[in-house]
């Protein structure tokens, strides 16, 4: 199951990774080999088998709707790379 350079570039854009040319080249080869190996799951006929998303039979674990203190704002922004007026500062979208 080969994956093309164009597909890798597309996936990198979906994943928000700015890959360099060499990285793109290497990943195309590596992902092709890994996809070859994992494609083995296609050998099994599983049309009648339900999927498992979670290994414990726990459903609807609700928390009590009780107000409690949240982190102070200064802690929330303490690790942020750029802050202005208690807000996370980011570059313009365009």
């Amino acid at each position, binding site marked *: 199951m080969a994956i093309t350079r164009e597909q890798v570039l597309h996936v990198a854009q979906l*994943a928000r*990774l700015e890959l360099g040319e060499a990285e793109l080249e290497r990943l195309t080869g*590596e992902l092709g080999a890994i996809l070859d190996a994992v494609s083995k799951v296609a050998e099994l006929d*599983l049309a009648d088998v339900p999927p498992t998303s979670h290994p414990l039979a726990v459903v609807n674990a609700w928390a009590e709707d009780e107000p409690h203190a949240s982190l102070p704002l200064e802690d929330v922004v303490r690790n942020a790379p750029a802050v202005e007026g208690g807000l996370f500062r980011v570059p313009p979208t365009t």
Partner: protein
Amino acid sequence: MSALVDTLRTTAEEALGLLERGDVSAAELHAAYLDAIGERDGELHAYLRTADYDGASGIPIALKDVISTKGLGTTAGSKILEHYVPVFDATVAARCRESGLSVLGKTNTDEFAMGSSTENSAFGPSRNPWDPSRVPGGSGGGTASAVSAGLAPWGLGSDTGGSIKQPSALCGNVGLRPTYGTVSRYGIVAFASSLDQVGPVAKTVRDTALLYRIVSGRDPSDSTTVELPEAVELPTADRLDGLRVGVPRQAMALEAIEPGVRAAFEHVLRLAEELGARVSECELPISYDYGMPCYYLIAPAEASSNLARYDGVRYGLRSEGETYRAMVERTRDDGFGDEPKRRIMLGTYALSAGYYDAYYGQAQRVRTLLVREHAAAFEDVEVIATPTSPTVAFPIGDKAADPLAMYACDLLTIPSCLAGLPGLSVPCGFSEGLPVGLQLLAPQFGENTLFRAGHALEQALDLDLVPERLR
């Protein structure tokens, strides 16, 4: 070595005894381990950072660096979190502190716990105390190396596909991957949420049980957690009378298992029979052919989602960019190492339009088969036994350039992780002078059974698990 305590040999239970009798103070114990770290960690690099004594009343503990510790840096072995300092404790860290445990420091890990050797750590690999030219396993190689080399009496790791059990096996420790949902993951750096579990690494099975008792149980902050159906028992029995042990025929047919590992495993099976266990073959026909492909679709898919949070906005590294999108893409390219990038790419591809059903959907159905075939096997046996790792510790660099060779390290640990089952790795002998681990698996919430079996075998084996070169 500290004059007060031999950190290489002292178990957590013995250290607690020393404290209770007043032979040492908590501060002296902490200092003894920091001394040992100062002496040996330059070579081993088990720790990413250490912590000063903070007035705790109990014995020390090492925490894998995916566990958030308030005020103490937590990097998950990644450059993207290099300067991140949590503003809250993970629930397991809080429970350790509430029990009086004194945090010695944060141990090295493959980046975002992705790997089987710690070679993927952005801060350099840890080394195996039995032979520093070899890996300690991974991803929790730091904790395993520390416990083995007397740099901590015990520690906590996290396990997605083998990151507690495999390094425990390669370093000669006991390690428990608990039943999914029994230990809180609140404050743990997430890798693959339907698989991640936190668990203990220690020198003995009893220490492992004791630490599991401290950290397990429902946490309102993690809605996937449950209360244990029965209290954790510290094992005492030295017999295994009537215990039904199954050995999967398909596991033992794997050529990947080294002869020395196979010999140590077969020896411990005979010992189990001498102690009264009934050992028989069992069947896991899908697990070893399809477990790894299934895992390497599900885990990367979940990782690609979890790692989307590293965007240079709220915390972590930020690289400069003219626009928001350029900033995010550059930050993620600069901040993530090769293995997280591979898994993000693989997972994003497996989840993308047109491929979802064939990859992620199909893998989730394979997972159902794995759950079913383990349940079927456990109708006839109480415990399933295999070697933990097909090999002993391998030389640093041996598999670093071949992702698929590295992924194969977890061939034997992955299937039960996908099924949500508990697994205990117990040292069962040596091959080429390096430790070999026995993996014991049980049905969900079967930890007490694992502790009983592991303890009896550990007593009968009576191995010297201090690395020869440190004795």
